[in-house]
Structure formats: C-alpha cells, structure tokens
C-alpha cells in the first residue's frame, strides 16, 4: 500500500521487492491474495501449480513471457510482441479465471451483459494446463 503514491517511489519499490506485475506473474499471485485471502507462500504455490512452473519462475520475465503466451494470460503489448490473434485485456482475463480457477468480477459481468450463459470453448493451452518449459 502506498507504493503507487503520486510522484513517489513506485519504481524503487518495484525493483527492490516487487514480483514484476505482468512482466512476470505478479498480477496472478496478487489475484490469489485478493480473491482468496491467501498468504503469499500459499498464493505463489497455487499459481505455480496451476501454471506448471516452479515458484522461483514467477518473478522471471523470460519464463513467464512464454507461459503467458501459451496460456493466453495476456502480455504487455509492445510493438514486436503484439499479435492480432493474441488475447486483449478482458479476453486474457477469461483465461486467467479459468487457469487459476477463481472468479474474476469483470469477466463474470462481461458474460452476464453479453447474455452468454454457455460454456466457453477452451483454448488448447487451457486444455493441457501443464506447461513444459
């Protein structure tokens, strides 16, 4: 808390102790703390298990770049990595909910408002679940 204080010290904290957000798996670990109230160790274990990686990989941007691509979990859109067939933000969150096995509020509201009650066609990555690095 307070890490994002205006004209403050966001980058110093991010470099000193942060999981790296979407550069790695920080947003995914955060979701387990937020949605399930899991303490950090349990949250890291849960996410690593669901992604099929080691806990130490969760802050590694090289490993997570491939994992996120394969599972459709969203990547930071920069020119050379942005492909039209890759999921955008809300689309990626459908995958995040499925892979982590948690409800995501915006995904649930999106479903509800487009009147979609059926099952989503699973991605190949979500079907296989376990990722070989």
């Amino acid at each position: 808390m307070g890490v994002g204080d205006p004209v403050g010290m966001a980058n110093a904290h991010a470099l000193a102790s942060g999981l790296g957000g979407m550069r790695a798996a920080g947003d995914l670990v955060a979701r387990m703390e937020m949605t399930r109230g899991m303490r950090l160790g349990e949250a890291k274990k849960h996410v690593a298990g669901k992604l099929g990686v080691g806990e130490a990989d969760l802050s590694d941007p090289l490993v997570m770049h491939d994992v996120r691509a394969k599972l459709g979990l969203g990547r930071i859109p920069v020119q050379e990595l942005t492909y039209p067939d890759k999921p955008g933000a809300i689309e990626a969150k459908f995958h995040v909910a499925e892979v982590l096995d948690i409800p995501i509020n915006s995904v649930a509201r999106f479903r509800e408002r487009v009147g979609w009650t059926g099952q989503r066609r699973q991605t190949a990555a979500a079907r296989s679940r376990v990722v070989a690095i």
Partner: protein
Amino acid sequence: MEDRIRTRLADGSLVEMTPSEIRADLEDGTRAAAGRSKLPPLNDDELAHLHDIFCSNARFSAVDIGDEVVLSFDGSGNADVGSRVEEMTVYQNHHGADMTELWNIDYSYKAIKTILSYESNLMKSCQLNLVAPCQYGAMPDLGRYSRPDGPVPNWSELLPLGKIAEARAAQEEAGEYAARDMVFVAEAMAEAGADGMDFDTAGAAGDGDFLATLRAVEEIRRRFPDLSIEVGMASEFVLGMHGGLEFKGERLAGMWPHDQARVAAEAGATIFGPAVNVNTRRSVAWNVARAITLVKKCCEESPIPVHMNVGMGVGGVPMTPYPPIDAVSRVSRALVDLTRMDGL
C-alpha cells in the same frame, strides 16, 4: 577512525553516519517501539541484518531473487499522463504493478458518492483495458460527516467543552453515514467489474472511523463473497477519539497492528495494510527498526495477507514528495527480509 556512511533522515535529507551511530539508531528505534507497544524488540540477528542493509553506500538495495512480494500500488491511477485509465496502463505496462487502483483526487467515500456514475464508468473502462487486477480506493474519512462539512455535530468542538456524551453520540451517528456511503460506492464498483475495494487510512479519525470501516467491510463481504477488500490503516495504533467503541466485543481504541489485522479479517477483509508513521527528525534506519518491531507480530499472526503501508512518510519511507531511491529500496528490502510480509 570509522567509515562514514551516506544515509538519510526520514525527511529525506542526506546525512553521514558511522556504523556505530547507525547501530545505535537501530537499537534505539526498536527499543522505542517495544517500550510503547509492549511487543518484543528485534533480536541481535535481526539488528545485524538491518545494520548490513544500512551500512552500505550502494545506491540501491533489494531482496533476494525468489523473495519478491505483491505490490498493491494504491494511488496508481493518477492523471499524471493523460487520463487515469491511461495512467494505470502505464503502471501495469511500465512500473510492474501487480495490482492497480482507480481513485479520485478527492480521496473520500463521501465525496465519491456524489460523482459515482462517472467513477464507476471509469472503472468499467479500466476493466476492459487492464489485465492486472484493479481495485477502487478512497478514505473512510469520518471527519467529513461533522459540521460544517457534514450533518453531524463536530466532536472536535464538543470534546474541549467537556461534552463527552454528545461527542460520542456524534461519532456514532457519523459512523452510520460513513458505513452506508462505503457500501453504496462498493455496490456500484462491484457492478462495474472492480476486482476489489480499498479502504485507505482507516482509523484516521480514530476508533469511530475504524468501526465504520469494519461495519462496511462486513456488509460488503456479505453481499459480494469474492470481492477483494483491502483495509489500510492511518497510524500504528487506533486513536480513542470515542474510547468506548467495540467490534464483536473487542475495544478498538488502542489496538496495535496485530489486533487490527485480526478484526479486519473477522469483518471480511482479504488484505490488511498496517501503517507506522515516521519521525522525520530521526534516521531512516531508526524508523525502519521501529516500524518492523511494531508490525512483525502482525505479519506472523495475521490470517490474511499483510501489505505494509510504504508510501510517503510511512513504514520508514521519508516524508517528502520525491523519496530518494536509496532510502526507499532499503525500506522495501528491510521490511520484506525481516517480516516476510505478503506485500507492500
């Protein structure tokens, strides 16, 4: 003759201290906290680790690989760059934010209620454009409900007049208004797809402020079982502006972080943010030793994740708009290394 180490005071200014002076500050900081809170002081190993962190002239310090924690980045949706939604995309894409927060410059739930349709539509835009979780944040801000800004008699005016009963009744009435507004905003934000709510600087106006927050959290949890609820504090212990308020039979006034975390969890919070204010006349090392002493038990015992407040002027971070990175990085590392907290 001892080396001189470049280090900081908690007002951000650069000073030189010897390793012995830094050690003395660390010992004094933990002793000061332990004396007030009756919590155990840091042991020799812990003080030695802090001494290593602070007795270095390196510009930056960081946790070991694998020890990283979740950063909640409340206050990330500034309008520094274009719109607030754009700013949060910047935080997600360029600052490595694990979580983001939409907020308004009038950071109070009472104020947000009047512009809620605008704020909740912005939340919708955030949710369509972000992958990282995005919560909505503001202060419970109980003082806003007192006259002349609000409908309730001003307890800060009543107390000096000796009108204790009237001051207490005013705080209780204000608490009901505040809890209602917090739930009202949360309901709209949940409809807009928010991942969570942040009640920032809870207890800023004392135990009435904290109780209003806990009651709002209880009701929001009842209505939205999966919504994240973060309760961040305003100072290390709950001020007894009322003095007699209880939550589930426990007196709130005088609670230290470990008890605050427990009642926040009982109310239904999923993340707790302890706050320890800095003494700007002392060194960052003194302030960090003091802060860790006050929150260590909270980190050990809390049933929910603990994200320490480490913005300007809290947790050991210097009280200045541009906190130097040498100081911030040492605070960040020291807190994580010694408390194994879940986030910042």
